């Protein structure tokens, strides 16, 4: 338990770069790097010590290195006041880091052919995974997507780490035109893939899960449901997920996830409490005590 426990440390900004449409930030955060396993994330406090922004911002980890006692690299897009504040940080600035948090990707015991699918900056989480899969001699095939060229993250890194890379952009400015999940079926068939790992928005993950179910192969998906604390206390990031008992539970993405088996998530019911979920409000039956 102690080994997998996260740490909370003041992180020091080492570098801040803009790559494409996204910010890439490297932090010196001792203790996080050595505990990290691919798929896990970090939760950053934004706005400084007296911040009026009370919720943490959670980010997938792009890379960890043992330098300076352990560094963590994250990729994010500026979307609101919190990420704006983060993007304004300069080297040597301090930001509170909690991590690594969440369940990591399950890894194959034997070398198997993997398809790694990522959309926009969510692709970042695929790279530490790719490094570990490589060590296990797994052939890797990358599928990367985004709205345009600027929004495709990590194409160069994927060429270095993977056996093949295919890119799809919605505006057709890079690779094939369309959505990246449309390339999945042919990628699975072409590579005889045995597992798909995906990091993307919910819509894409739903489609990935469906495709994989069609081929009878597992989809390990990392969701980027907005999290508010990252540690499991606030109950904000819940998804309807089918448990081992066969019942649907409202589970926290930050504790039980962010990695789920694709077929376990009830994608069509996200944003609702399914009527058959454990503890769902139910209509009173005749004669029943309220």
């Amino acid at each position: 338990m102690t080994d997998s426990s996260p740490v909370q440390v003041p992180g020091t900004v080492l570098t801040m770069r803009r790559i494409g449409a996204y910010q890439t930030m490297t932090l010196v955060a001792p203790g996080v790097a050595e505990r990290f396993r691919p798929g896990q994330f970090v939760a950053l406090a934004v706005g400084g010590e007296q911040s009026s922004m009370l919720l943490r911002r959670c980010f997938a980890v792009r890379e960890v290195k043992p330098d300076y006692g352990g560094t963590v690299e994250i990729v994010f897009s500026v979307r609101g006041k919190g990420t704006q504040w983060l993007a304004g940080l300069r080297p040597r600035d301090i930001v509170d880091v909690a991590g690594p948090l969440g369940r990591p990707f399950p890894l194959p015991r034997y070398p198997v052919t993997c398809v790694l699918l990522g959309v926009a900056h969510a692709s970042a989480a695929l790279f530490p995974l790719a490094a570990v899969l490589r060590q296990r001699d797994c052939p890797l095939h990358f599928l990367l997507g985004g709205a345009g060229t600027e929004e495709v993250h990590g194409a160069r890194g994927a060429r270095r780490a993977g056996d093949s890379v295919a890119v799809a952009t919605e505006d057709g400015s890079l690779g094939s035109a369309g959505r990246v999940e449309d390339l999945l079926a042919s990628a699975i068939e072409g590579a005889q893939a045995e597992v798909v790992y995906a990091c993307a928005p919910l819509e894409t993950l739903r489609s990935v899960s469906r495709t994989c179910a069609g081929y009878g192969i597992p989809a390990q998906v990392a969701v980027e449901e907005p999290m508010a604390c990252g540690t499991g206390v606030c109950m904000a990031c819940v998804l309807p997920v089918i448990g081992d008992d066969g019942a649907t539970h409202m589970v926290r993405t930050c504790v039980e996830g962010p990695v789920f088996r694709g077929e376990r998530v009830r994608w069509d019911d996200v944003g609702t409490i399914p009527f058959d979920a454990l503890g769902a409000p139910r209509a009173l039956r005749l004669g029943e005590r309220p």
Partner: protein
Amino acid sequence: MSVDLRTRLGPVSLPNPIMTASGCGGTGRELGRFFHVAKLGAIVTPSITPEPRAGRPAPRLAETPSGVLNSTGLQGPGIDVFLDRDLPWLDEQGARTIVSIAGNSVEEYAEVAKRLNSAPGVTAVEINTSCPNVEDRGLMFAAHPTAAAEVVRAVRTNTRRGVPVFAKLSADVTDVVGVAMACADAGADGLSMINTLHGMAVDTWSFRPRLAGVTGGLSGPAIRPVAVRCVYQVHAALPEVPIIGMGGVRTGTDALELILAGASAVAVGTANLHDPSACTRILRELDTALRERGITGLADAVGLAHKPAGTLIRRIDPNVGVGEPTEQESLQ
């Protein structure tokens, strides 16, 4: 000089006054990854209901200036799983556990209280009479003194002696003192205040409410002055009833503010979302703050804001007796 942080809540004595607020500290396990849960005065559990509850749909949280709006809908596993899985864990860790309970009817509250009776490791019971967050707004017991009193009576009669019952009050009422008095008369050993304030936020791009539940409970430093006011007013009216103060506490001095207003213990809520080690940090900061002010015992600081200016320590308090003169005072 070491500060005596011990505090009394009716029949129960706690090693220090800092605890998690209900629903903001998880089951204890989550924060237990960042510090030892037995270090705190107590862990207050999320509100336990008779049956499992799936809660409300997402989005459940919205960030507002120095605050958080939530409509979680009391998601929880229900009393069976709580007794089976969560309470024994807390007991094993040596934590003092205050069990928050909720229900849709007086009978449901009584049922949960009864189930807790035979369970080891319950330090106190806190009745969530006021969460504006449950499905039916009409069922906010805390809005009416008589309804609140009825729940308190039901829980008190179903709870064994020696286990104090605290009623958690809402500040969303015209007269919080009236509700507090009704609860105390009905047998509450103490009062917890305040619960979240009812609020709402609208997204200016989608033109829709930011919470799936439309309205939610506002917490965080934004509501602290309301908490201080309620604690002050209730302590003035009922000086002998112990109060657990909560609402926007983020630092040790925030905790001290509530203590000065009349709280014997302080619960930390939303700060846990921002900083998972907030409770232990606040405990440390409170110790320092008391020492800096020459106060040697926490009990001496409780309700000091009610005393005339210049009164520091020498006073007669039915709970404490005559205070020891401080170093500062002896020097003068």
